[in-house]
């Protein structure tokens, strides 16, 4: 508990943490502003034919659609931001050599890193919570309610009430994927020690994971259990029928990947010299 308090205290005493939160709001603001000024026109062009055929409750460019747009930052922007901040929890300590000062005190190495992993995961959850809360409040406040139209394999429509709980679940289960990326970035920091190297490796990991998601591995089992095939689990909530079994299995697997990545990091950190 002592170490958890210390890590949280350090995290929130550093200006870069607040820059990250500001960056998150900046992404959100861009989505909201671009939707406000240009969104209606684009949506009208895309769905002009459908509007003649179907009846939609409310405007098509509504709060639900905007939240869905913001949710799509889970593919790259939000995980990258999390990875940069979280890896910095360790790389700055290597860089400023405070890690040496820490381990000149009677502090157990693996416990210290475990506290970082836990605080990093909690911070990621906090960021998602902040993003979810603000996006729901601002999107509904500015754009109002209405049916959600989503294009995945084809166009799918959800009534407002249905859309709301699907978006909430998507945020909830998407968090697991973000926690995974945060934990990976901290493990990369253990390996690479330097900020820039870790950022590049983290960005590369994220890009490759996203690319591999679309690639067929030619084996049904690997297609189901490989970690990069699990990152889109939150998208399953926008299929017409929610496949709860797949979502739960994917989430358990993702939880295991998080655990294994942490254990690898702890093992390497315990074995490595600090100096």
């Amino acid at each position: 508990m002592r170490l958890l308090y210390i890590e949280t205290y350090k995290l929130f005493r550093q200006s870069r943490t607040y820059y990250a939160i500001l960056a998150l709001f900046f992404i959100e603001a861009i989505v909201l502003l671009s939707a406000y000024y240009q969104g209606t026109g684009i949506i009208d062009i895309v769905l002009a034919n459908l509007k003649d055929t179907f009846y939609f409750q409310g405007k098509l460019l509504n709060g639900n659609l905007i939240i869905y747009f913001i949710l799509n930052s889970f593919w790259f922007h939000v995980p990258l931001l999390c990875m940069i901040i979280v890896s910095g929890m360790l790389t700055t300590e290597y860089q400023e050599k405070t890690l040496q000062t820490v381990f000149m005190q009677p502090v157990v190495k693996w416990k210290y890193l475990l506290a970082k992993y836990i605080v990093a995961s909690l911070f990621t959850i906090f960021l998602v919570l902040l993003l979810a809360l603000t996006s729901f409040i601002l999107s509904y406040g500015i754009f109002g309610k209405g049916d959600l139209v989503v294009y995945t394999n084809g166009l799918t429509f959800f009534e407002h009430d249905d859309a709301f709980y699907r978006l909430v679940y998507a945020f909830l289960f998407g968090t697991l994927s973000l926690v995974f990326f945060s934990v990976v970035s901290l493990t990369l920091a253990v390996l690479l020690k330097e900020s820039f190297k870790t950022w590049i490796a983290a960005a590369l990991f994220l890009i490759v994971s996203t690319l591999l998601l679309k690639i067929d591995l030619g084996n049904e089992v690997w297609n189901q259990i490989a970690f990069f095939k699990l990152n889109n689990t939150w998208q399953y909530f926008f299929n017409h029928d929610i496949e709860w079994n797949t979502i739960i299995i994917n989430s358990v697997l993702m939880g295991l990947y998080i655990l294994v990545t942490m254990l690898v990091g702890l093992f390497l950190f315990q074995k490595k010299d600090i100096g």
Partner: protein
Amino acid sequence: MIYCERVHKKYGKVRALHNVSISCGKGEILGLVGANGAGKTTLFKILLGLVTADSGEVEIAGDGAKKIGGIIEKPALYPYLNAHENLRLFAKMQGANSSKQDVEASLEQVGLPLNRTDPVRNFSMGMKQRLGIAVALLNNPSCLLLDEPFSGLDPLGIEALKQLILDLTQQTQMTILISSHIIDVLSTVCTNLSIIHNGEIVQTGATSTILAACTTSYSLCGSDIKKASFLSDYDTVSNGDCMTISASATEISDIIFKLSQQQIAITSCRPVLDLQQLFNPKEK
């Protein structure tokens, strides 16, 4: 007590330490002298448990949760926190007392002002060194390791730090190991010296004995020193009001005596060390 025996360490193919043995008893101050890259920091990191030796034995004797404290190279502190917060954080981390009174007592012990509440990134090197020592002293270790504590300090800072180190040994009987290449400073603080060269300990002994063995000339300063005609009997090199004279300790005493008889005032007498003799005694 700090003790290590036959310690070896390699970084890849580079030999950092070879068969290093040192020992420093309770209440003693041992100076580790060596040029840059001689292996001082590696040895300190091994003693502090930051780096694992390839082979050899290390023993740090002491009571309590923390046997040894130290600073490696420069004091590494959280730059965005102030001195009070840094101390509180490091104290909490190891379960030591972290109350306001305890933190203030630690600051006072190293002579830091209590009213500085700005982040330590604004501190001078001397203040950072003091705060680093305060962190090292948390939880009352029996041994203290200071790696290059005088580098980057002005003369006043060096004097203040020297006094702090001497006070610590006198008041707490702490075992202190200091590394530096500033031999002048070490000679006034350390009871014993170990000379490290290319990762090997080449000499160990009482400070006065080692320095005397390596002193082959002295630098005498005085405004009228060039008027002393008898100095032409010695090998001398003039530099302004100073003169470097090749002479033994006995001879230099005679020279000073003669100079005083001739009413030539001497403002300083400084031994000039033969560094070749200091670092490579076997080659001489």
